[in-house]
């Protein structure tokens, strides 16, 4: 369905998995008037194209509400600064938090967006205790989440156990490879205990230690990712303990460390030895945090249509937008049927080359066996097949050797390149080649120079 054909009304509300889906680090939402991330040049280009297609955005006025709306692109983890254009475009949300809440509830407004505070029940709560530290509380999964600047689309997005909050906010340095950045809150050590106490009182379900946080997994009936933390990634889930790993090597290491003993236990039925039987691949898994001692990937149930496929499928709306963008950048495609080109071109080729005349009047079914592989009733050709395999393999190896020799020739400078005949003897006597006790032989130099023995 094209954007311009999309009717506006009650059905314009977001249906999870149908109207929005994850596209890597971006969220594509079919919703009116939401802004792009201001720093995203590609998204800006996308908007520019869409605006050019739909006319001047400034002349909408009252007509704007009756016109089909554009799908916005919101970077995952965008902070409030990305919503600077919100007011310019009369967006219904005051912050990225409101927006994420709307996503989590699949409750985006329709034509006339209601007031977000009233209409959008939030999965992320930002109470007065959390707000000064830019923290949020996921009311669905009961975790504290850091919304300070970070590396996930500009936001930290790390889930925090309570006893790590102080350290996370105040630490002065992080490893270069860490996904975190220094938040630099000027808190005094004396404030640590009161802060933790306050958090425990107000959020008693929140995990206190990293070990407790590692026990958190999505609810059995939960569909879609855990809101507020890093977006899902594909990976491998252990069939025994259901821990996830992003690479096969890490998964193998886990099995070797945790489950190797299982195979040795007497009475335990032997486990499968294949990787595919030990781990199963999932299109989406998440970890609440990527801090060293808190990584624990778990599988999530992709929302909506995405649950039926390995990768979220692009909708026709996405394709329309992509085609528009491509047309803008590269120009419209020539309106020629590719299949027709192939057929016509190949037939013309066969005609002009004489191939059609060459086989005219002959049965293809009789000609094709002539160029078939050797049959069992053709012993000489069967022997030829074995000989040909040997010959071809040998040639391929020689080509490889020749390539190596050629590379060596190029690297080893000109004395080797044009060395031949008497020049070899001169070169052997030259100080240039005095490379120690072991002197090169004439034949070794010839080999290096690809010269015949």
């Amino acid at each position, binding site marked *: 369905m094209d954007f311009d054909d999309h009717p506006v009304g009650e059905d314009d509300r977001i249906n999870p998995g149908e109207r929005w889906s994850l596209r890597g680090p971006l969220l594509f939402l079919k919703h009116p008037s939401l802004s792009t991330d201001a720093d995203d040049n590609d998204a800006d280009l996308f908007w520019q194209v869409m605006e050019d297609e739909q006319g001047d955005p400034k002349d909408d006025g009252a007509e704007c509400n009756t016109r089909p709306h554009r799908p916005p692109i919101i970077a995952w983890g965008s902070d409030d600064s990305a919503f600077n254009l919100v007011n310019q475009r009369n967006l219904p949300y005051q912050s990225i938090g409101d927006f994420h809440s709307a996503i989590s509830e699949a409750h985006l407004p329709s034509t006339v967006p209601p007031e977000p505070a009233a209409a959008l029940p939030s999965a992320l709560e930002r109470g007065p205790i959390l707000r000064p530290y830019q923290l949020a509380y996921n009311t669905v999964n009961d975790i504290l989440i850091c919304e300070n600047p970070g590396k996930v689309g500009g936001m930290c997005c790390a889930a925090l156990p309570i006893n790590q909050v102080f350290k996370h906010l105040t630490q002065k340095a992080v490893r270069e490879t860490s996904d975190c950045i220094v938040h630099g809150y000027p808190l005094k050590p004396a404030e640590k205990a009161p802060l933790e106490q306050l958090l425990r009182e107000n959020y008693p379900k929140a995990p206190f230690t990293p070990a407790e946080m590692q026990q958190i997994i999505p609810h059995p009936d939960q569909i879609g990712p855990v809101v507020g933390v890093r977006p899902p990634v594909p990976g491998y889930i252990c069939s025994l303990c259901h821990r996830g790993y992003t690479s096969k090597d890490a998964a193998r290491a886990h099995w070797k460390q945790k489950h190797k003993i299982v195979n040795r236990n007497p009475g335990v039925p032997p486990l499968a030895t294949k990787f595919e039987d030990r781990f199963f691949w999932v299109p989406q898994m998440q970890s609440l945090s990527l801090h060293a001692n808190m990584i624990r990937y778990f599988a999530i149930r992709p929302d909506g249509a995405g649950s039926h496929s390995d990768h979220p499928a692009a909708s026709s709306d996405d394709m329309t937008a992509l085609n528009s963008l491509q047309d803008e950048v590269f120009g419209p495609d020539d309106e020629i049927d590719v299949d027709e080109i192939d057929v016509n071109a190949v037939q013309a080729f066969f005609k002009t080359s004489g*191939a059609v005349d060459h086989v005219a009047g002959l049965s293809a079914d009789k*000609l094709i066996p*002539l160029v078939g592989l050797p049959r069992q009733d053709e012993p000489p050709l069967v022997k*030829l097949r074995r000989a040909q395999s040997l010959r071809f*393999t040998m040639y391929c190896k020689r080509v490889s050797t020749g390539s190596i020799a050629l590379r060596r020739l190029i690297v080893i400078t000109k004395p080797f390149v044009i060395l031949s005949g008497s020049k070899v003897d001169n070169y052997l006597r030259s100080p240039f080649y005095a490379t120690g006790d072991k002197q090169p032989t004439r034949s070794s130099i010839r080999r290096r120079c690809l010269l015949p023995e």
Partner: protein
Amino acid sequence: MKYSLEELRLFAFVLRCFDSGQYFTDGAGGYSETSSDTDTSQSSETSAPHIRNGIYCINLTLAQVSAIKNLNDRLATCAYNSKDLRDAIDALAEALYMPDNTDEMLVNIFVSPVAAWMCLRSLVKGGGFAAPKLITGKLVAGQCSIRLCIFFSVMRKWRQRREAGKNASEAEGDWFQ
């Protein structure tokens, strides 16, 4: 290995045609001489000289015929991994890929068994030619074999030339300048 099988099809093609007498040997004017005993209708089929009594025939040069005979002999007497058999295959490949009737190919490309082989490889059952997607892989394999053969043929001749006592610099000048 698929590439080698594609070239094997070519060898099998020419050997089958030769063994069943489905071939001509070229003379001064191309299709002037035939080894087949079914050339009584040649005058009536000048428009399609490669079809004799409804049977498809290929055109072979004398060098190609010699190489095929040599290969047949080696196939009958040598082990599959013998050097003689390999040399015989090399000789046939060289005769096919670097024939001495290239002038005639300007008039009719299908005097080359290689071109005829590619034409037949493009056919599909029931008649007609395959889609380009299906042909490309075969063409690539064939071209690889041709280039491989020419590469080693040139190297071999270069070495033979040097071993024949030619001055090294002269030889290099001839080949690479």
